[in-house]
């Protein structure tokens, strides 16, 4: 699937949109308008953008609480994302979920899950659903390096192989789980090596800052799975530029390390690629950035003007069964 100019511009737009929404969210958080946890995806945009850009509509996506990237990639509007962050009724999860719990089932995006690793067996179950019904969708399950140490990981991944489920296990190795570096928490530093214990084919993409490489690696993995060969395990190396959540003292890493990684900013890399390869002009990209700026401003206005959920709605989603 060679990308046309407009496709590149759209992917670039998504990455910038994620970045801008999050930068502004950080401000809104500081201003006390967003509460709870706010886990920024800044630095990792190439990963989710690359993944979503190669999936088919029937491929489900499910991820952890660091979910703004996927949310915007699948097409949830900045309005609905920011309104959710502000806890408004117009938020994508109606103000119930907040930062960690965005989902849009219509867009085949299944959340946003806050208990580390717990969504892996759930993802296996979704893949089972597709297999059971004879649908050819792949469930793409994204999780962090830290999540690979919890028992849920083991049970979910093992089951996927035993039942040959169409699931892509996609580890975003951003090198820390909160303040714990991979080698201080995981017996193996090459996370994808864990797949050996499940007989699942695996690989590591060393450069997850380059969206083109992410697309390639994920595309190949999806093809593998869709051809009926069962699960695949892909580790993508990346880095988060901000703290784990807001208010992280970041005692666990040197400023230098962050600065070094910031040189591999995925947006910068893509910008250089697009302009360098003459896919589009700098001016095209500038225009996108301006449009995103406008869009985010509007989204914030929309969100701020939106109503809180009414107290009378407290029990609205208690049960799916209507008595």
């Amino acid at each position, binding site marked *: 699937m060679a990308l046309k100019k407009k496709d590149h511009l759209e992917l670039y737009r998504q990455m910038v949109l994620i970045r801008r929404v999050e930068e502004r969210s950080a401000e809104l958080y500081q201003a006390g308008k967003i509460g709870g946890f706010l886990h920024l995806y800044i630095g990792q945009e190439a990963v989710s953008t690359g993944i979503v850009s190669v999936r088919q509509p029937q491929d489900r996506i499910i991820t952890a609480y660091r979910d703004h990237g996927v949310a915007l990639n699948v097409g949830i509007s900045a309005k609905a994302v920011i309104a959710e962050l502000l806890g408004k009724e117009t938020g994508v*999860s109606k103000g119930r979920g907040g930062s960690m719990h965005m989902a849009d089932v219509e867009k085949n995006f299944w959340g946003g899950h806050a208990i580390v690793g717990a969504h892996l067996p759930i993802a296996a179950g979704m893949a089972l659903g597709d297999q059971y019904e004879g649908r050819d969708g792949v469930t793409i399950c994204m999780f962090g390096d830290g999540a690979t140490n919890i028992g849920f990981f083991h049970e979910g991944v093992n*089951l996927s192989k035993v039942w040959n489920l169409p699931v892509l296990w996609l580890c975003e190795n951003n090198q820390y789980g909160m303040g714990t570096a991979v080698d201080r928490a995981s017996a193996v530093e090459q996370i994808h090596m864990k797949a050996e214990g499940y007989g699942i084919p695996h690989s590591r993409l060393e450069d997850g800052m380059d969206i083109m490489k992410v697309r390639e690696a994920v595309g190949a993995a999806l093809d593998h799975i869709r051809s009926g060969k069962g699960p695949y395990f892909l580790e993508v190396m990346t880095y988060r530029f901000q703290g784990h959540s807001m208010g992280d003292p970041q005692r666990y890493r040197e400023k230098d390390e962050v600065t070094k990684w910031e040189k591999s900013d995925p947006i910068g890399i893509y910008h250089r690629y697009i302009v360098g390869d003459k896919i589009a002009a700098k001016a095209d990209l500038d225009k996108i950035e301006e449009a995103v700026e406008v869009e985010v401003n509007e989204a914030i206005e929309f969100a701020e003007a939106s109503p809180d959920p009414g107290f009378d709605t407290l029990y609205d*989603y208690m049960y799916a069964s209507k008595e």
Partner: protein
Amino acid sequence: MAIITMRQAISDALWEEMERDPKVFIMGQEVGVWGGTYAVTKGFLDHFGEKRVRDTPIAESAIVGAGIGASMVGLRPVSEIMTINFAFVAMDYIVNEAPKMHTMFGGQMSVPLVIRTAGGGGRQLGATHSQTPDAIFAHFPGLKVVSPGTPADAKGLLKAAIRDNDPVLFIEHAAMYQIRGEVPEGDYTTPIGVSKVQREGDAVTIVTYCKGLQLSMAAAEQLSAEGIEVEIVDLRSLRPLDMGPALESFKKTNRAVIVEEGWPSYGVGAEVATRLYEAAFDYADAPIKRVAQKEVPLPYNAALEQFALPQVDDVVAAVKEVL
């Protein structure tokens, strides 16, 4: 009406629901080749095949977690946890995933999952394998908790649970599969969250469920011989908890005994007693009594175990005390 065992009633419910709806399937340890550790699913594998009768690894989190995932995408799984003691292994899924999905994403998702399990003591299985911790699951809004005391209710409630759009924890009693009772012919469901008067009387109200119903019925016989007619209310569901019939009865008898097999502290009796007092304080002519297990992990020794478990005589004594 045919007289059949609890085992048969539960087995029939599963069988009939699987015949009725191809989206219903079973997964759990030893449900297939073995035929169920309590022989509830004997013959299912041959009839329904491996796709719908799925043996799993020993991985309770995956059994419930995958059940959640499959249910979210349209299937109707029955995830079996061999005994309720292993439900702790899947605790996060039972109380913190399944019951939260619907509300947390603003109604986008639902979890029409049944988690079947068997609890109870009296089989000399020792401290880790003999528990009746039903109350702790009923603490969580969003989860429905059902525990039948008769074959008829077991069949009707299990069918209702499978057709319900919310997660239902269905608690059987491992020592009750052999009890017999009349079961209506044909297809029927018994509503979840509706208590039932199982015996009429005017002297004392006994509120109970599951194994406690057996104890209470036996006690009622003895008491009747002495001219004391107790009324027995079977809760059948612990959440939603229908206090209607118990309250009505209590307003008539002005005395109540609550019979449960688990530990009293923070148990079912505490909740029921408190609700009776809250709603009918002026009707209470004597302190409500609880009959429950002694506050120790159950020992292996048969006599000591029985000594720790509530007995028919304890119910009889409690009734006499409140009279």
